[in-house]
């Protein structure tokens, strides 16, 4: 990897340059929570000033810019006795500025599912390739346990990654595209001092994690605890509202539905993000539901995160952002649920 130093002004210039002819998305302050804390979302901005790079976390992840909550997969044009299928995917380039390490790790996991595998998704890949990703280091967010799942650092999957050294940014360059951009504004080589400062910041971040989740042996533990009362305890609380999956940077389950235009000339095939906690997730014809209870649905969300995905890709799907825990009105959150499972193990 190549590294450079950018001044803060230089970075602002860089973003302004992109803004002139491209859409830029970044953390924007949208409201103040009841607890007095600001609430942020990744949203399109019109100027650098609208970005709040010193944000703690966002309510929703940036995945919607890669896997939209709703996306048209195909359009069918009806013509008397015939039809044609039209497939389009987004190719308009844009930039996302200010993703934290966990969110970039989230993208890397989605890459595994939608970028490789048996059937890569052109819809996803086109968005991914056409999105410039600029990451930034940040102190741990409250409740975040990305360190426990090794998602607090990231070494690829971005174009640029910034570490704030006070008056300047230490920039890790992850692509030729990123390299060219840095070259367009004032920059300089990394000095030994910069490297020391950078490592100190990294260390400070690593040391600051307060929330830890025991992930060792979790896949096996989950198999062992398949019938554990823990699931009922937490499952009974579940509102089956799907908020966790909407807020999770790596949840990607979906449903596909088709609609016909009111004048019966066009049919559209629309993909909509679903959630394994929703009642009808595994409902099939004849009203048979393979996961009729809240308990079984909640359990399978944890299974997919920490066992199923681990089996397929040797790592958990969860990046430890705890957005699902924060957004859950019932207070179901991975640190506590997983701790509970370990308790059960000991008991």
């Amino acid at each position, binding site marked *: 990897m190549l590294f450079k130093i950018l001044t803060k002004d230089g970075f602002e210039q860089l973003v*302004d340059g992109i803004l002139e002819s*491209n859409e830029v998305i970044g953390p924007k302050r949208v409201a103040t929570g009841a607890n007095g804390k600001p609430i942020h979302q990744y949203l399109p901005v019109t100027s650098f000033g609208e970005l709040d790079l010193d944000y703690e976390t966002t309510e929703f992840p940036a995945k919607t810019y890669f896997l939209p909550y709703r996306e048209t997969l195909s359009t069918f044009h*009806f013509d008397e006795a015939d039809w044609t299928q039209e497939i389009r995917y987004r190719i308009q380039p844009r930039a996302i500025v200010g993703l934290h390490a966990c969110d970039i790790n989230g993208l890397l996991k989605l890459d595994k599912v939608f970028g490789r595998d*048996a059937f890569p998704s052109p819809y996803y*890949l086109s968005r991914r390739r056409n999105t410039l990703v600029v990451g930034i280091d940040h102190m741990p967010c409250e409740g975040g346990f990305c360190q426990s799942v090794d998602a607090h650092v990231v070494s690829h999957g971005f174009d640029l990654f910034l570490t704030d050294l006070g008056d300047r940014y230490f920039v890790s360059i992850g692509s030729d595209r990123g390299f060219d951009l840095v070259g367009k504004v004032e920059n300089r080589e990394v000095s030994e001092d910069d490297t020391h400062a950078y490592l100190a910041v990294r260390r400070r971040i690593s040391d600051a994690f307060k929330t830890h989740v025991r992930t060792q042996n979790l896949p096996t533990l989950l198999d062992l605890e398949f019938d554990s009362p823990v699931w009922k305890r937490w499952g009974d609380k579940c509102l089956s509202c799907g908020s966790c999956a909407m807020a999770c940077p790596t949840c990607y*389950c979906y449903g*596909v539905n*088709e609609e016909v235009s009111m004048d019966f000339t066009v049919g559209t095939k629309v993909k909509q993000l679903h959630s394994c906690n929703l009642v009808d997730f595994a409902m099939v014809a004849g009203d048979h539901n393979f996961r009729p209870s809240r308990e079984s649905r909640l359990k399978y969300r944890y299974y997919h995160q920490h066992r199923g995905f681990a089996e397929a890709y040797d790592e958990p799907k969860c990046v430890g952002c705890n957005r699902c825990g924060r957004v859950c009105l019932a207070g179901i959150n991975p640190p506590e649920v997983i701790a509970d499972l370990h308790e059960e193990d000991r008991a």
Partner: protein
Amino acid sequence: MSTELHRYDITQESDFLQPRDFNRKTLLQHVDQVFRAQITNIIDLTSEEKLFHVRLVKDHQRERFTFLPGQFVMLEVPGYGEIPISISSAPTNKGYLELCIRKVGRVTSVLHKARRGALVGIRGPFGTSFPMEKMRDHSVLLIAGGLGLAPLRAPIFHVTENRTNYDQVHIIYGTRTPDQLLFDYQYEQWRRINGVNLSIIVEQPDEAWTGEVGLITKLIDDLDFDPANTYAIVCGPPVMFKFVCNQLSTKGVPMHRMFVSLERRMHCGMGKCCRCNIGSTYTCVDGPVFDYWSVMNLKEAI
């Protein structure tokens, strides 16, 4: 300074990112493209099921389209939805499929209204198949309950078309009532095939019924076969194949020689939407055909 971000054409990646080939050199950008297919014939089977003969429209697609017994396709009815349907015809018929469809919801209802000549879409074939090669030189039990005869027809065709490759063949079929029996016009034909033994049973007979009455397990009780030399394919609702497989198991058929076809909700057929996910297993790509041992190991499979 103005920076215009480069537009990246993903079709450039097709060379090194190629989807698992389902019978066409599929380019990345075409994974969602359907083959246009015409409904050439419709056969009323029962009040709820119809058999659709479907033929791919384009010559080169018909040429290339092959499948194995047990695989399924995603059947697209533009504007109404795409549903997984098992292929119910002989694998030797190129580019030509028979799909047996029960009317249960939106897509199947609109299909049941469709007329001969209608154009639908086909994606696939998808999924695993019954290991017909492995079964060579063995006796085969082909067991179906209810709509399970639809996916079982492909192996039946295969076995009868390659009759010399297999030893004794038993086709065992059961439904709840006589009017639910599918493909009754073919029974006579199957019965006449040398070394094929067809038995049928219903749970609730009507006045006209003269055949066997009871659960399908009753037929298996009476069955005379050599478990050491036998493979079984069992298709039907989960309760049915669970009972049948357990019964076969007690009779001595090893679990890895019994094959079942699982049904789950599916929206993509490509291991993405997760709706068919059982633990870490995707019914659409890792299945739908599983041996019974694997099914026993899948939590919540039955």
